[in-house]
């Protein structure tokens, strides 16, 4: 069961003086299976028509025995592959990253540069897709309205291949 939780903080002090950061949290669950491979994970911002507004990260086997064999399985991130991956020359700076072990992994993005900088106000979905060799696949969606409000934290939970997914706006004094 996926749920969506909105926490609106008391602080509504958003002003140009603040350097806003977006935190995207992805939890990879620990799985008790005979053969475990760290999952391939893609994170992106989808528009309402499912097209990609911004790519955030792709974690995959960057090199295998000196070749780029790891790219062979990128298509198994099949929504990301369809929406973005097949049109991107991989590896790509700022997007490609190695696979991650089970646990909570946070990414932060500055709202004034990087993938969130060019988002027009509107409705979007944070999509996290995870697929594991000889394992399963899962996608978790976190719908949100841009711009996020100060202190706002949105959360969703995966069932099988993903744990908690979090999208939050963190303000700090510049």
């Amino acid at each position: 069961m996926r749920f969506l939780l909105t926490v609106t903080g008391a602080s509504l002090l958003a002003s140009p003086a603040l350097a806003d950061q977006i935190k995207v949290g992805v939890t990879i669950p620990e799985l008790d299976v005979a053969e475990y491979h760290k999952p391939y994970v893609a994170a992106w911002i989808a528009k309402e028509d499912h097209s990609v507004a911004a790519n955030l990260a792709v974690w995959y086997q960057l090199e295998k025995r000196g070749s780029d064999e790891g790219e062979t399985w990128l298509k198994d991130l099949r929504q990301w592959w369809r929406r973005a991956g097949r049109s991107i020359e991989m590896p790509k700076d700022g997007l490609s990253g190695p696979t991650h072990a089970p646990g909570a992994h946070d990414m932060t993005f500055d709202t004034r540069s990087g993938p969130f900088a060019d988002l027009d106000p509107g409705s979007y979905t944070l999509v996290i897709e995870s697929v594991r060799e000889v394992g399963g696949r899962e996608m978790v969606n976190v719908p949100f309205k841009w711009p996020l409000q100060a202190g706002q934290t949105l959360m969703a939970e995966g069932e099988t291949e993903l744990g908690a997914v979090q999208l939050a706006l963190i303000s700090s004094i510049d």
Partner: protein
Amino acid sequence: MTYKFGKTLLLTGAALLLAGQASAHRAWILPSSFTLSGENQRITVDAAISNNLFYPNHHALSLEQVSVTGPDGSNIEMEDVSTGEYRSVFDVPLVQEGTYRIGSQGSGYFASWEEDGERRRWRGTEEELANENIADKPGVRISKNDRTNMTFVTLGAPSQSAFTKTGEGLELASGTHPNDIYAGEEVSFSFTLNGEATNGVEIEIVRGHDRYRDSEGAKALTTDADGMINFTLEEAGPYWLSAEVDGKAMLNGKEISSRTSYIMTFEALPF
């Protein structure tokens, strides 16, 4: 070499030798992957004529007419080619990004006539038809068969060059790219016959693994005036599509009946 022929031609025992297989048998070319990522990939392809999709249980598909065309239009050589009793197998190295076309396109003739009080049936090429003076047989009836058996495979992003029209027979002309089909999303295909959009083309779509269900659950559709069909597949999996249309062809200035068919395998991915 044998495809889904018209039933009427196949009703007598003598026809079996000539026409090979009965109409329940389906020809197909099935790649190990339809969509690939990375560089220097390779697929293995099965080709057979079978009762069930996609289990080779009747006859291998001859690879004589099968070719592979790369995204740039060049011919790609098949590797590790083998034909057994029930299926043919070959590998295709994929280096260029884009969509590959794998299959055969060909035509042949059927003829039947009375000779020495016996019904004679004949099948062959246009050249054989002329060499054997088939058109001069007593009371001869000749019909033409144009058939295409295709599949499409994409490395990287799908490309359109694989759908360049030849203007011959039935062709998938436009619409949804066959390597971009997802369960629950509407698909549209438009077909051309000899280069022209044609209505009344009868389409049958069957999901694979039919040997594990009581009913094959074929979807039957007919193209509209724009040569178009629209459908939504509820289940992901490999699919077999057959398009067929009857018409007329000319032979030595005489009108003969013709049947044109197009077979394609594709997959619908889960959303």
